[in-house]
């Protein structure tokens, strides 16, 4: 079993075996990240370019750390400090980066499909680090890793994904992967935030949070994208917090051992109450820690010679 792909663009086309391979590979790197010397020589001489057209601290730092712990050379490239402001297209930018012999390009872009477009145009491997509302495959993989690390198995796992599902690439990647792995997915939010036809992906739709949380083993909260609220999806933030915010009371409706996840950055007191974010059932910081190990695994698997 190996990952016979040049690029990692979305989880939709991945097989269960490929997902399992990535998770098992990440296990080995989790051990590496627990060592005193957290570095292995596996990607010596390789160059990884972080090409981020959207602000990101967590994902970019996570990829940077992952690449560095594999001994790759890392270049961070963000549009504000580059020729993009001078009108260069994405593909031209990427071709220039490729001409400098980048082996792997990690792309974050505000447009859905940007990673796919780039992958077709360059020989380097492309890893999608979030493209518009489309997918964020590495985030979903680290979510899966965190669930698995807690000893939960995916077959029949009851998962509630709460919030702005329609505009969430994290949700989309997770839905694809969890459905493949046989989980029972419940999507919860106001009707304006739940895409029509989402049931086709194998999920059930709920508008009432209390009802959706009953008996779930995983509560996956989505960030309320306050910066996108030019589009009026609900009357006030206060009303949203009251109807869809995760409180300690609501967590009690879930399975006693349920875990609370959030891709970050969290809006305390909006989608998640501070005492829930800091509670024992919260695995939010585990997700961040696991992100490095999972991304090391992905970089390793994608680093085969071209």
């Amino acid at each position, binding site marked *: 079993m190996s990952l016979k792909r040049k690029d990692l663009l979305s989880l939709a086309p991945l097989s269960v075996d490929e997902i399992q391979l990535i998770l098992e590979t990440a296990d080995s790197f989790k051990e590496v990240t627990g*060592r005193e010397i957290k570095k292995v020589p596996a990607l010596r001489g390789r160059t990884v370019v972080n090409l981020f057209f959207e602000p990101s601290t967590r994902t970019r730092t996570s990829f940077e750390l992952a690449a560095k712990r594999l001994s790759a050379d890392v270049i961070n490239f963000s549009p504000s400090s580059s020729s993009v402001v001078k009108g260069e297209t994405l593909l031209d930018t990427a071709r220039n980066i490729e001409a400098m012999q980048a082996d792997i390009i990690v792309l974050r872009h505000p447009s859905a499909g940007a990673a796919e477009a780039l992958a077709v145009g360059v020989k380097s491997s492309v890893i999608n680090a979030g493209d518009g509302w489309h997918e964020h495959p590495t985030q979903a993989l680290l979510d899966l890793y965190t669930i698995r690390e807690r000893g939960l198995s995916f077959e029949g796992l009851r998962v509630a994904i709460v919030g702005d599902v329609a505009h969430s690439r994290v949700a989309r990647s997770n839905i694809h992967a969890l459905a493949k792995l046989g989980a029972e997915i419940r999507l919860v939010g106001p009707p304006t935030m739940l895409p029509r036809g989402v049931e086709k992906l194998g999920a059930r739709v709920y508008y009432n949070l209390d009802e959706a949380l009953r008996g779930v083993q995983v509560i996956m909260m989505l960030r309320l994208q306050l910066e996108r609220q030019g589009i009026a999806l609900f009357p006030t933030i206060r009303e949203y917090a009251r109807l869809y915010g995760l409180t300690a009371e609501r967590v009690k409706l879930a399975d006693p051992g349920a875990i609370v996840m959030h891709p970050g950055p969290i809006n305390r007191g909006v989608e998640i109450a501070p005492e829930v974010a800091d509670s024992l059932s919260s695995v939010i910081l585990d997700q961040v820690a696991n992100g490095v190990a999972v991304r090391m695994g992905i970089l390793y698997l994608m680093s085969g010679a071209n």
Partner: protein
Amino acid sequence: MPSSDRQLERLVMDAGDIARAVTRIAHEILERNKGIKDLALVGIRTGGVHLAHQLVKRIQEIEAASVPIGELDITLYRDDLSLRKEQPILRKTSVPFDVSDKIIVLVDDVLFTGRTIRAAMDGLIDLGRPEEIQLAVLVDRGHRQLPIKATYIGKNIPTSREENIHVLLEEEGEDDRVVILKA
């Protein structure tokens, strides 16, 4: 491999030979290190792990005391990773003790080019600074490509490069054997 493709399979060590070699190596380890103080065994995945367990068991029988054992996956330290099209499957390294200041006996089934041992030494040193690293192998088949020598050898078996040596070790040891396959 279908049996029809196996032109010749020659038995070079049977279960008894292997058991006696393991017993002798266990004694040699204890003799050289004057007992088990600061001693630990690390098997190289996957072939060395079984052998390391057998050696630890034998040492335990002789000294009536246990020796720490670890398992090392050397994949991330291979020198051919940048040449391969697909990356090999990783297995987990599990060395549940501090290697610093210990006498570590690396254990592998077959010593061939020496590249695996080079990788294993690098991997081990990333975990700490052992006082000493020694090497125990069941079979030394020659053809070294690096200046590496085993401290303890079960059997020297001269081979040609085209031949393959297979070490088959079972949990119980009944069907243990070493065979040469001619390509």
